[in-house]
């Protein structure tokens, strides 16, 4: 054979194996921050997704093929998330993507999935706008789904707890990101519905190390409860400032108060802080027990860095796999339709998903599912133990 023929043969066989390989796997993107201040959520989410994928693959995969995860670190940066979305869609040609921890990254990146008609499953980002960005009737169909408790649900839970405990003077301390400010707006709305108007609304930037001014303003305004909307490291600085002022005030806030970076950094100052949780690391159902055991064995940890992210990440993969199986295709449009009309019950860690989505409702988690958690002894436990016992342990989305 001449050189030319050799080369042609080599190229042909390479192309063949490439094509064969592509047919054997189903590529799914996993996008989240594995570095930086949101890393504990991103890494836990990814590990939950990986755990579910291994189980699904071991059981034969979907449509007779193995799932191949394409992981990308968006560093919680909007611009990087946008790049990754385009890379996953155009270069990797993923069937779907799960992930997004940060609301800002999600809002910036998911429009590419929408345009490419590829479903995206938000498993952590909680901004209320996330599933509303491409809602009908402005858009023919919406490719954005979510299995996390959105900010509307969380803020009304927080506001309800405020009211139930008889607090009347509320201070809100939130960070200046999309997450903090959208959440702050939701919180104000939820408080207004209950006839409460915050006496102080304060702000700080990511990376700030001293929140004395914010805490002091809240204290000066006579607040009897502090509500937060931010992430781990800055939340720790906030409670540290509150304690430094010698100010005895209850602190409540969004689910991020369960992040390891908050609990570890705040130490004793973080004890007693309350937040909504879709999942608490307790073996309250057999499914939860096997998930926790598997996670601990696979990643050699006792405490999951962010249990909520891990559980929702795990569930997101099962929901997606069920939809692909039902669609009998990896075509984005068919997978979306299958998600909107899921006929099989999916037993997840957070809840059992029975028709979790419809054409107009892309939220799998409803207001009745999350429970209030409280930091005790460096771990999140249920604020009301009855929430995770007996028949109350599994809360499911009500039939519409």
């Amino acid at each position: 054979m001449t050189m030319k023929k050799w080369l042609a043969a080599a190229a042909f066989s390479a192309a063949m194996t490439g094509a064969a390989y592509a047919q054997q796997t189903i590529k799914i993107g996993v996008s989240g921050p594995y570095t930086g201040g949101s890393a504990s959520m991103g890494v836990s989410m990814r590990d939950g997704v990986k755990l579910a994928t291994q189980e699904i693959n071991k059981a034969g995969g979907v449509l007779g093929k193995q799932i191949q995860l394409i992981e990308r670190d968006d560093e919680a940066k909007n611009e990087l998330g946008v790049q990754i979305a385009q890379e996953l869609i155009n270069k990797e040609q993923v069937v779907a993507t799960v992930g997004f921890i940060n609301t800002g990254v999600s809002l910036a990146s998911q429009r590419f999935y929408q345009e490419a008609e590829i479903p995206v499953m938000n498993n952590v980002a909680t901004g209320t706008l996330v599933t509303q960005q491409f809602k009908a009737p402005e858009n023919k169909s919406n490719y954005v789904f979510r299995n996390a408790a959105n900010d509307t649900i969380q803020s009304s839970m927080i506001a309800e707890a405020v009211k139930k405990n008889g607090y009347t003077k509320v201070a809100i301390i939130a960070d200046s990101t999309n997450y903090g400010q959208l959440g702050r707006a939701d919180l104000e709305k939820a408080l207004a519905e209950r006839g409460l108007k915050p006496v102080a609304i304060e702000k700080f930037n990511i990376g700030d190390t001293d929140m004395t001014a914010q805490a002091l303003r809240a204290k000066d305004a006579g607040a009897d409860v502090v509500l937060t909307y931010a992430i781990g490291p800055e939340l720790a600085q906030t409670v540290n400032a509150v304690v430094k002022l010698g100010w005895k005030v209850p602190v409540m806030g969004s689910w991020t108060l369960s992040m390891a970076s908050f609990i570890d950094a705040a130490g004793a100052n973080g004890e007693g802080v309350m937040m909504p949780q879709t999942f608490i690391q307790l073996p309250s159902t057999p499914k939860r027990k096997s998930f926790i055991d598997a996670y601990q064995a696979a990643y050699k940890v006792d405490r999951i860095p962010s249990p909520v992210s891990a559980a929702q990440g795990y569930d997101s993969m099962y929901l997606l796999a069920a939809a692909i199986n039902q669609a009998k295709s990896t075509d984005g449009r068919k997978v979306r339709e299958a998600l909107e009309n899921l006929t099989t019950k999916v037993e997840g860690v957070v809840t059992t998903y029975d028709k979790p989505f419809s054409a107009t409702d892309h939220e799998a988690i409803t207001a009745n599912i999350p429970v209030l958690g409280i930091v005790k002894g460096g771990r999140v436990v249920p604020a009301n133990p009855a929430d995770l016992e007996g028949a109350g342990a599994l809360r499911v989305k009500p039939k519409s």
Partner: protein
Amino acid sequence: MQNFFQILVSGISVGMIYGVIAFGYQLTFATSKTLNFGQGEALTLGALVGLTCVNFLIGLHLGTLAAYLIALPFVFAFGLAQGAVVERLGVRQAMKTKSEAGWIMATIALGIIFKNMAENIWGKDPLKFPSPLSENPLTIAGVNIRPMEIAIVLGALAMMLAVEAFNRRSIYGKAVVATSNDRDAAGLMGINTPLVITFSYALSSLAAALAGVLIAPITLTGANMGAALGLKAFAVAIIGGLSSGLGVVVGGLILGITESMTGFYFDTGYKDVPGLILLLLVLSLKPAGLFGKTAIKKV
């Protein structure tokens, strides 16, 4: 009034951190007219090395305070070595080529390399630094202060006074001062100016490493901790004036106090604005900085 002092105290402790990092910028600028744009990363590395040492010593059943004090010399030694590496690997090579901006890219590049190294060695999550002093606040005249905040101010002052004393009293310090005043003349007088410059880089990283271990117990320790602080300190160095050691300390205090005061008396959302306006004003009205000497450059 009590609130005013409470805010003042927190402004001073934040400002002192800015000041001590900016002091590092000033040290190298004085001798070589170059800066280490990886100061923030030098701080990060100092804090992380400190964390490893402290945890190791606590593992040997030492008290946290004893562990902290024993770890300090190791952190200083590491800071010195790290600064010398930056100068030898980055700045000196770039200066040889007579490029105006090469050293800028070289120090930024080394900073990124150090940050990535830190991410790989210590992980990407923020870590808790065991506090050597009690975390319970002290109440002095109605103002609550965490003991570590006092330690920051005292530690930073002690370091800067030590450097000043070294420069004034010792023969080696005089070589540094001579190099700062006129590098060529100092070289002609037999001073090994390249060595002096390496030394000033080493000292500047030491200052950053000290700042790192001072603030680590009250902030979190992690690969990203230095980025924002390094940038703020750079603004401080411009405000105070890069040619004056005292100037950068005062600049740091000005920025720290303005930030806290604006946050409290105006709006916490606009906390960073006055500092930056001040920076722009200084640049347009007194480019050498508030305490800087105007240099005459003959062309």
